[in-house]
């Protein structure tokens, strides 16, 4: 098996007396979807932010291996280097589409921004790419000049995903991508994400408190509680044969329709 795409070792972070991260080790391999599940306040979103370099840890390292196989320590990287990585190799999908989109700018501008940041200066090409990606996330490309506020919540989330994927990233961070959407929209969005992930061979870190979403998308599940990883393993193993008491509680708490 190839080397991990991203690996973190012994991450520590305290907010005052609260241990948000308490000795977390985690890794992800190319093409792998890892779900981080846990209750609110368990440190899963914090972990995602630290892994993506949006937040510094008190201790520990995060190593990213680029396409050339060279390892970079994310937190030792300059801001310029981190931004470059964020633009070219990574994507971040926020829970709230408003955090990931520019609300005053058209759908095409939102999707095209990453291309322009990467140096594309051809208007027709940028526009064609934006329209193509809108179609791939099942949006109507004819609405390319409409601002995000004209779109529904689910559509905004699709737009955010298109904006992330337009530069062909290798690793995508998703923070509750289906949070706040109604169940039928959630189901279609999960279906879309699953399709794109397998099509593009993306590696995805995916934070959720929705066990069903984790079952649908993830290859591997990491269960967090009080800033620690209490259990991890293949998705079906963790869900069908939970070992830790907390995981058992979590799995048994899922409502059956």
């Amino acid at each position, binding site marked *: 098996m190839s080397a991990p795409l991203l690996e973190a070792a012994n991450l520590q972070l305290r907010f005052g007396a609260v241990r948000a991260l308490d000795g977390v080790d985690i890794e992800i391999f190319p093409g792998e979807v890892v779900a981080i599940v846990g209750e609110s306040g368990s440190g899963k979103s914090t972990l995602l932010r630290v892994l993506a370099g949006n937040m510094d840890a008190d201790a520990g390292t995060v190593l990213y291996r680029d396409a050339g196989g060279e390892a970079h320590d994310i937190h030792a990287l300059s*801001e*310029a280097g981190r*931004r470059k990585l964020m633009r070219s190799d990574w994507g971040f999908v926020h829970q709230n589409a408003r955090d990931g989109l*520019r609300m005053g*700018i*058209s759908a*095409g*501008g939102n999707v*095209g*921004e*990453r291309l*322009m*940041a990467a140096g594309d*200066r*051809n*208007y*027709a090409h*940028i*526009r064609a790419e934006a329209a193509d990606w809108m179609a791939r996330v099942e949006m109507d490309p004819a609405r*390319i*000049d409409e601002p995000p506020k004209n779109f529904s919540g689910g559509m905004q989330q699709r737009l955010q995903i298109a904006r992330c994927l337009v530069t062909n990233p290798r690793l995508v961070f998703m923070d509750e991508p289906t949070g706040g959407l109604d169940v039928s929209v959630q189901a279609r969005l999960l279906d879309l994400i699953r399709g794109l992930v397998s099509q593009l061979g993306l590696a995805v870190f995916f934070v959720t408190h929705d066990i069903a979403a984790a079952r649908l998308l993830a290859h591997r599940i990491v269960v967090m509680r009080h800033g620690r990883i209490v259990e991890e393993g293949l998705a079906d193993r963790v869900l069908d044969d939970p070992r830790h008491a907390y995981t058992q509680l979590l799995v048994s708490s899922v409502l059956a329709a």
Partner: protein
Amino acid sequence: MNAITPRNAPENAYNFAYLDEATKRMIRRAILKAIAIPGHQIPFGAREMPLPYGWGTGGIQVTAAILGPRDVLKVIDQGADDTTNAVSIRRFFARVANVQTTTRTAEATIIQTRHRIPERPLTEGQVMVFQVPMPEPLFKLEPRLAETRRLHALGDYSLAQVKLYEDIAKQGESGSSYNHPVMVGGRYLMSPSPIPGFDNPKLHNSPALMLFGAGREKKIYAVPPYTSVESLDFEDHPFRPMRAPQHCSACGSATSYLDEIIADDQGGRIFVCSDTDHCAETQGL
């Protein structure tokens, strides 16, 4: 008894060119830094000047700092030598520095300007001083100044490019007919001050030194001679300087930048050169 000083008599109560020498040294230091880093905004301690903000306090301080007794000063406002602002600033320096003033672009060594670059090509040794209301080109796109500084440091100008994309998507062309942002020396995005896009190409590889002073925002920046200045655009939507398609009613020029003037109360209008000196020269006056 104090006699009333004639309006244009030299003034001896002030230091040469109004500002004290320490202030001028401070401004010159900022100018030198600005020249060393083309297009980068250098903060400086702008002083209160005897005219309101927005009337050219930045430009006037830069001019005061570089003015020498042998300089010949020209001041233009929207291309014209005879508008209030231009006349006042020219007379100000004639009084406090006793320098020679002119309306001829060819004769001037320093040209302070608001909103235009003269039509006559500038030459080596000439200095243009621009009055700048808002030096930050990303100001309308990113309201946090700390963040704009970070974007400049990282050379991340995708925001400005996205704005241009939006303009083209909405109206088929760039939405800024003046103050169209430029890349200086391939590194810094710069506001060319509110000059029309028509004048942007004149900044590129100009033999003259271009200095920009923003008094209220307390910033100075510069384009040294023979520096590349590219207007922001797309490969397939190149920057297009705009000009009214008419001829000047006074001199007949078909190439100079024109002002539209309402000529009567019947809605009649004429177009004349914005650069009054150029127009007079073409007419042989």
